[in-house]
């Protein structure tokens, strides 16, 4: 059954042939994303889907991109970014224990995976084509544009690309992924910094409380004392506070 899904950007996503395997990889087949150069589903279905691996046949059909990501929210954001730059057949693999099996089944042209994902090492197996018809993949580095790969690595995304795929077809995809992953990284850094600041403030408050009670001083004097100890010892106020709190915990 054909199902229409409207995503947050007001575009209709039409899964053309649903080969869903609930247990492992959600396979969203063939989205038509962009409204500008939209291809009608009828016409698209007549396009030859050639299972070959030379770029000539890649020209005839949508590129297949597999996103390896177990967090559904993140996967959806990456999907959205890619659909904004073109039409692709997107698949998401979220079960790392079946990663290689799922990728072999999907047979994608491009695999996008978080640089921090431990399962990246399992993907390295795919760089060795062990059967004659298998398509070896490689971490994308085009000689003319090593900078693009460098930017991707810095953003924390790695792209594995099938042999023979031209760089100009890959560039918009990688650009979109890099932008998205840079946003992820920023969010992650901000979250960590906020958490740390909150944590530190809590500890300093507790340390101040301990000093106020033990020495009968007010809050301002307690903080001044902490700051002074930190300066004398060449440490951070937070570190001194933490030491005080944990020591007080032992003595109480």
């Amino acid at each position: 059954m054909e199902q229409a899904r409207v995503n947050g950007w007001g575009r209709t996503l039409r899964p053309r042939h649903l080969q869903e395997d609930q247990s492992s990889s959600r396979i969203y087949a063939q989205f038509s994303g962009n409204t500008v150069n939209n291809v009608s589903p009828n016409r698209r279905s007549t396009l030859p889907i050639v299972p070959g691996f030379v770029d000539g046949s890649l020209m005839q059909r949508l590129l297949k991109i597999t996103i390896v990501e177990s967090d559904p929210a993140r996967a959806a954001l990456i999907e959205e970014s890619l659909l904004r730059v073109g039409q692709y057949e997107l698949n998401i693999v979220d079960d790392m224990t079946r990663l290689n099996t799922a990728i072999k089944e999907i047979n994608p042209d491009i695999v996008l995976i978080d640089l921090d994902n431990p399962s990246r090492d399992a993907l390295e197996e795919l760089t060795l084509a062990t059967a004659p018809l298998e398509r070896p993949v490689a971490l994308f580095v085009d000689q003319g544009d090593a900078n693009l790969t460098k930017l991707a690595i810095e953003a924390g995304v790695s792209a594995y690309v099938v042999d023979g795929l031209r760089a100009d077809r890959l560039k918009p995809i990688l650009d979109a992924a890099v932008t998205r992953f840079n946003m992820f990284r920023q969010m992650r850094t901000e979250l960590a910094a906020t958490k740390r600041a909150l944590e530190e403030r809590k500890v300093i408050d507790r340390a101040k409380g301990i000093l106020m009670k033990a020495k009968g001083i007010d809050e301002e004097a307690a903080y001044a004392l902490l700051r002074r100890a930190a300066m004398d010892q060449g440490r951070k106020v937070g570190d001194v506070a933490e030491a005080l709190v944990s020591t007080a915990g032992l003595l109480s």
Partner: protein
Amino acid sequence: MTATIPVGFVPLIDAGPLIVAVEMGFDRAEGIALDLRRANSWSALRDMVSFGQVTAAQMLSPMPVATALGLGGAGAALAAVAVLSTNGEVVCVSAAMAKRLREAGHDFGFDDAYTAGRALIAAADGPLRIAVPFPFSMHAELLYHWLTALGLPAPSGIDIRTVPPPLMAAALAAGEIDACCVGEPWGSMAVERGVGTLLLPGSAIWPGMPEKVLGVRADLADSNPEPLRALIRALWHAGQWLNDPRSRVTACEMLSGRDYLDVPPEVIDRALSGHLTISARGDSRVVPQFVDFGHFAPQQAHAAWIGGRLAARLGLDRGTSQDAACATYRTDLHENALQSIPGYVPEPEVFERSFDGQIFTPALPK
């Protein structure tokens, strides 16, 4: 002016020299400051070195060789400038396999690669499914050597697949694999979780196998700047310190830190002391040379052996592969860095034989 050197590592006991260099200040004593960055995968480390996010990184010893042969990765050529650790791997079997081995009368003696290997092959139900952390690793090479030497046909009788170490315990528990070969503390962690039993240490298959190296970009090795030489010296000091039994208690505490391995110090102690707990029932075994941090020089013979093995398995030309492999192991540079240490005497390298009497191929004539 202290040069800060970003260095990548994976949380394993053989990241020890890097962690100790920082914690004990061996880096600052050499006028450099290491900035350690933890990574989750070997491929990430390789790419971080290739594209300059880190200057150097802990690597599986076949990684620079594999890159030179065009296997995996596509970035810059890599060079091994030091051996961080020797052995330290374990073969760990699933609960189902352990039960079959026990029923067949295997005693889990933990010291005899012949009996353990033959028992494992006899207990196999179809091709042996064994997980390794990376396709180009000493774990894979040890397994292929060990099991084919005992008559198991490869690749038909053995299915070696890549599973990230954090997922190995789950794969053992789910029955997806019969065994895994992995660096400590992952084997002991599988025992702790009650899903694995240790069958053999890597040192019982081939003692003296270089397990991890320090990898840098080949162009950096060629220019051989002073900070790189200082890094090599700092790690040599760290390795010497780690090899001293008196350092063990302190070392276990350092490695167990939240920013490093983040596992209890007593689990790390098993590997560093060689007193391993092999089963959830608490059986223990002593391995005199479980892991070593003192065989510091990259050896051409090791590189040639690794190159030859990869070439044979993947259908590449043996001679050119071995030449390319040897070029990645920079023994020259290593000696050059260590000579300035007062009283430094190069350790005579003794090549130990594998369990079946093999010896590393000698360095090829240039």
